[in-house]
């Protein structure tokens, strides 16, 4: 028992590092009360270290802590994704006015970011429903507070309240679903659930209700329609850095859990083992992927259509991120490794383009003091470089070549057509045409309209530009040379205990 725990601890290094970093950050905040700027450095270093430890876990595949958590390529991939996002968010925070204007509470900010990252790391590897709930809660509780971080601003605390109400509601629904599933299968471990479902037939109505309720919990995390109501409000009200973090990392962790839960719980392993090509069969004839297909269509269509009417860029990006969740759900619907690989490719691409867009919004908001689309009028003439970068990010989000976003869409559509989900692919393709319309609205304001008010050039410092390039270069490069991301995705769909 002791040995096993010790071994588990050695495989738990990234999470341990984050836990220790969290504690040190809080303690350092108490001791170094006069030097608040030191704490983010500590947290940053901790997250960086944890990410490095996660890189070193690559290729290993085992269950630790008596099957509560697994370390497998799939989990490591999402840890890397979350870790890199957190690192980039810390870089953003250096230039965020919202964060820098509340120096005294920098401790809360950076230590809660660490806690949130920890929660997401756990979400990536959790294979027990109990662990999943706890990981979600750790992430959510930290993000509730961070969403309301600038508590003097009324919209920030309002966002926070809406967030926690919707969050608690979905947690409640999910827990109820888990309790029913526990009743049906007598297990909370996903592998045990799979074994139980494979061995005995259960009441299909009860199973459907349980899964629908659990989807409510996941759907809330990935902001899928109809569990998306919190997203626009929280994205608009929260500080931009937090919004960016939620839009990428939180969504990624949610997807990691959703995919793992469905893939391990409801796939016929015997069939999978019999075919090298990775044919998936569903246990109990329970076609949950149809449910996800409907969710996906609703999510992307609503996200895109509502985004067309938005005038606040943060809110626009919130709806666009809802739409992107819909695109990625298409990959899950396909029910094979191609689909999953496409989702992973999409996430890597999404990391760069979405963070890039939020970063530009933040830089501009710092100078102009507004996130309104109208305040972008003539920006192309006041700050050409930033505007061109924004155009690249938007084109990538819309999925046009030669940007990385195109590669993401390409692989998603490829997976769908390969599995003969032609109608879904057509819906996705038409959606990306709609999405272009609202992205281009911003581009139009930047280049086709003349500046209103001040026409002074807006300048940014060199480090600010360097961070922008860090996101811009991959967005363009992976659009033309995408072998590395596809190979990483192909290697990362492997889950512990499957095949």
């Amino acid at each position, binding site marked *: 028992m002791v040995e096993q725990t010790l071994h588990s601890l050695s495989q738990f290094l990234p999470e341990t590092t984050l836990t220790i970093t969290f504690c040190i950050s809080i303690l350092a905040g108490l001791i170094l009360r006069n030097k608040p700027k030191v704490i983010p450095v500590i947290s940053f270093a901790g997250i960086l270290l944890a990410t490095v430890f996660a890189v070193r876990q690559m290729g290993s595949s085992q269950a630790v802590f008596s099957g509560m958590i697994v370390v497998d390529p799939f989990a490591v991939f999402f840890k890397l994704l979350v870790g890199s996002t957190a690192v980039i968010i810390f870089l953003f925070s250096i230039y965020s006015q919202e964060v820098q204007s509340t120096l005294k509470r920098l401790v809360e900010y950076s230590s809660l970011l660490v806690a949130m990252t920890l929660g997401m790391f756990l979400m990536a590897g959790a294979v027990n429903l*109990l662990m999943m709930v706890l990981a979600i809660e750790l992430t959510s509780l930290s993000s509730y507070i961070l969403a309301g971080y600038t508590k003097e601003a009324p*919209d920030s605390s309002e966002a*926070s*309240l809406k967030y926690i109400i919707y969050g*608690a509601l979905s947690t409640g*629904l999910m827990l109820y679903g888990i309790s029913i599933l*526990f009743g049906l299968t007598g297990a909370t471990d996903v592998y045990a659930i799979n074994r139980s479902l494979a061995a005995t037939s259960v009441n299909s109505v009860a199973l459907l209700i349980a899964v629908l309720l659990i989807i409510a919990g996941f759907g809330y995390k990935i902001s899928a329609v109809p569990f998306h109501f919190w997203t626009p409000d929280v994205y*608009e009200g929260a500080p931009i850095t937090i919004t960016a973090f939620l839009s990428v990392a939180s969504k990624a962790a949610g997807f990691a859990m959703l995919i793992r839960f469905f893939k391990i719980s409801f796939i016929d392993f015997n069939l999978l083992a019999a075919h090298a090509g990775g044919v998936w069969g569903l246990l109990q004839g329970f076609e949950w992927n149809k449910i996800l297909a409907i969710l996906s269509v609703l999510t992307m269509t609503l996200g895109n259509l509502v985004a067309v*009417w938005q005038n606040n860029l943060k809110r626009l990006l919130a709806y666009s991120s809802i739409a992107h969740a819909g695109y990625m759900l298409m990959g899950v619907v396909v029910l094979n490794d191609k689909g999953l690989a496409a989702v992973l490719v999409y996430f890597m691409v999404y990391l760069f383009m979405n963070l890039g867009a939020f970063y530009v919004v933040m830089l501009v908001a710092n100078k102009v003091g507004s996130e309104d689309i109208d305040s972008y009028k003539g920006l192309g003439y006041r700050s050409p470089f930033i505007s061109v970068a924004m155009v690249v990010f938007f084109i990538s989000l819309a999925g046009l070549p030669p940007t990385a976003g195109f590669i993401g869409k390409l692989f998603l559509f490829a997976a769908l057509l390969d599995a003969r989900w032609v109608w879904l692919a057509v819906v996705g393709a038409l959606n990306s045409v709609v999405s272009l319309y609202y992205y281009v609205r911003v581009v139009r304001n930047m280049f086709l309209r003349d500046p209103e008010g001040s026409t002074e050039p807006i300048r940014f410092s060199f480090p600010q530009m360097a961070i922008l390039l860090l996101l811009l270069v991959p967005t363009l490069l992976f659009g033309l040379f995408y072998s590395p991301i596809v190979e990483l995705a192909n290697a990362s769909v492997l889950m512990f205990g499957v095949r």
Partner: protein
Amino acid sequence: MVEIQSYLILSAITFIIGVVGVLARRNAIIVFMSIELMLNSVNLTLVAFSAYLGDTTGQMLVFFVMTVAAAEAAVGLAIVIALFRNKQTVNIDDINILKW
């Protein structure tokens, strides 16, 4: 001996009352109370199934759910206080800067 169905029906009813409370009530405090009700009906289901299946996992889960409920309530009330300082209200209908 009470049948398991009775427990399940009871917990389903309290759960639905909780959900309706969250969706329909306008006072933030009552909304949080309704969420507590939801979580407690989850606990009831878990305990009932646990006894029925003779498996203690369910009872163990209950402890975690209680912790989660406590943490959510703590954070939630803190946020309500922060909001009250800004707006002098806990009515959800008055919290309407952000919409569509």
